[in-house]
């Protein structure tokens, strides 16, 4: 189910040249902001929770998930070089699974790790906040990567749709319509984080059972369907 060569090529496509620098800029910004906030405010649990929840989990994880998830397969389909990969005697689901592993790993390294560092800087893991948000970031990394990898195989405008989901659905509708929050990766991962950390600072609108079930279902279904899409992929010309 895991092909090292495909993994190596995907890593290179995702992190090659200047792309790693741009991906690295976001976590650096988060850490820089945490340092500033710590210097201004001192260790404060509420502030740490606001910053990690609002900036790290709500904005940074989805954006890095979009870049890694769609970037793992989108450009290859876009420029047609995916046929060279598909013509090799490797199962299509194996290709998808390998790319998913890579996308998850990249998302985790560039979003969950900085979240942990930022949390430690902000309040030294007081009330388990840093750990809770890191768990949330880890969990949502998996779901986002699977979801956006599927989008990458379905549509040529995967990045836009991914961003519309992450920014408009989760952020905008999530704050206006409470029902939209039930269908949001962010809330599911918060539920898991709430379970892990306890306390009242990390809360979610979704129960832990629902959240876990939905997370698993979404991840598995998205990966399976992406494999199916890749089996019947038709290459279209540029527009």
């Amino acid at each position: 189910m895991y092909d090292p060569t495909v993994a190596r090529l995907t890593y290179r496509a995702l992190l090659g040249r200047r792309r790693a620098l741009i991906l690295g800029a976001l976590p650096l910004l988060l850490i820089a902001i945490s340092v500033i906030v710590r210097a201004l405010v001192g260790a404060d649990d509420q502030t740490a929770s606001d910053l990690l929840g609002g900036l790290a989990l709500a904005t940074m994880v989805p954006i890095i998930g979009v870049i890694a998830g769609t970037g793992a397969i989108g450009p290859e389909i876009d420029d047609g070089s995916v046929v060279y990969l598909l013509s090799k005697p490797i199962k299509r689901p194996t290709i998808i699974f390998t790319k998913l592993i890579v996308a998850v790993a990249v998302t985790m390294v560039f979003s969950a790790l900085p979240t942990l560092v930022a949390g430690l800087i902000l309040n030294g893991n007081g009330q388990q906040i840093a750990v809770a948000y890191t768990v949330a970031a880890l969990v949502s990394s998996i779901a986002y990567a699977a979801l956006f990898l599927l989008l990458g195989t379905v549509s040529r405008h995967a990045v836009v749709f991914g961003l519309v989901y992450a920014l408009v659905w989760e952020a905008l509708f999530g704050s206006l319509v409470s029902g939209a929050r039930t269908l949001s990766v962010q809330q599911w991962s918060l539920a898991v984080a709430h379970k892990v950390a306890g306390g009242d600072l990390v809360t979610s609108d979704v129960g832990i059972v629902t959240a876990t079930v939905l997370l698993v279902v979404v991840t598995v279904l998205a990966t399976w369907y992406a494999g199916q899409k890749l089996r019947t992929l038709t290459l279209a010309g540029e527009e």
Partner: protein
Amino acid sequence: MAAEHPVATPAGDQTRIHNIGYRAYDGPRLGRSYATRSLYSQSLRGAYGLGRSVKSKVLPMLLFVVMCVPALIMVAVAVATKANDLPVDYTRYAIIMQSVICLYVASQAPQSVSRDLRFKTVPLYFSRPIETADYVRAKYAALASAMFILTAAPLLVLYVGALLAKLDFTDQTKGFAQGLVSVALLSLLFAGIGLVIAAVTPRRGFGIAAVIAVFTISYGAVTTLQAIADTQGSTSAIPWMGLFSPVTLIDGVQSAFLGATPSLPGGHGPSDGQGVVYVLVVLGLIAASYGLMMRRYKKVGL
């Protein structure tokens, strides 16, 4: 073939080049400015998917509709309830709809420049009479105009609706004019930033993500820091933080000079002196993005 006809023909031979009837072009030459204008109009049409496939019309048109529908609803409410004022200021509208505007610039800026880079058509443009500055100016002006259409259309809807609802004419006209100035600045600023980022990468998907990341992350970071500063009581620092994100920059300029209510936490708008700094930063960013684009295209594709 060449071997059968020896090149060295004896002198005095009747060697001549046949005239096979090619004619030089002696019609009017439309020149550099015409080519620039064509590039401008093509890019502007392209920004709304006109002259492109149906699929690429969907997103810009959808975003345009999403921009205008809330304005229509507000006008309908204002007319139906005979309100004395519109529910939202003209200057406020673009700030509320910022995520739609960001999505539009993120999707259309790479569309406009990344594809030229990726398919290496830029050298073809430069084999025409246009020069680097013409290309940059045409692309910049086209995207800025497209954004102006996107942001000014709902204001026009609001204005016409306000006049239909018989609201105060001078008051509404003043607000409308202020709103237009503000969205013009916003269009120039956003288009410049979007194009500079998009011109770096030939990958369209990556360009989209990079543009949206710059807009949303900077906005998220700035508003988070401002909220923290507000709760800490260090209110004097709040306006200065607004300088670091495009949306808060426009918000600061219009609340300093265009009579808008600032959306900063606690309503701490910039003072007049800070407003001048805001305007300078906005103009500086516009000039800088133009300069960076010029530098980028100095040796592109060569």
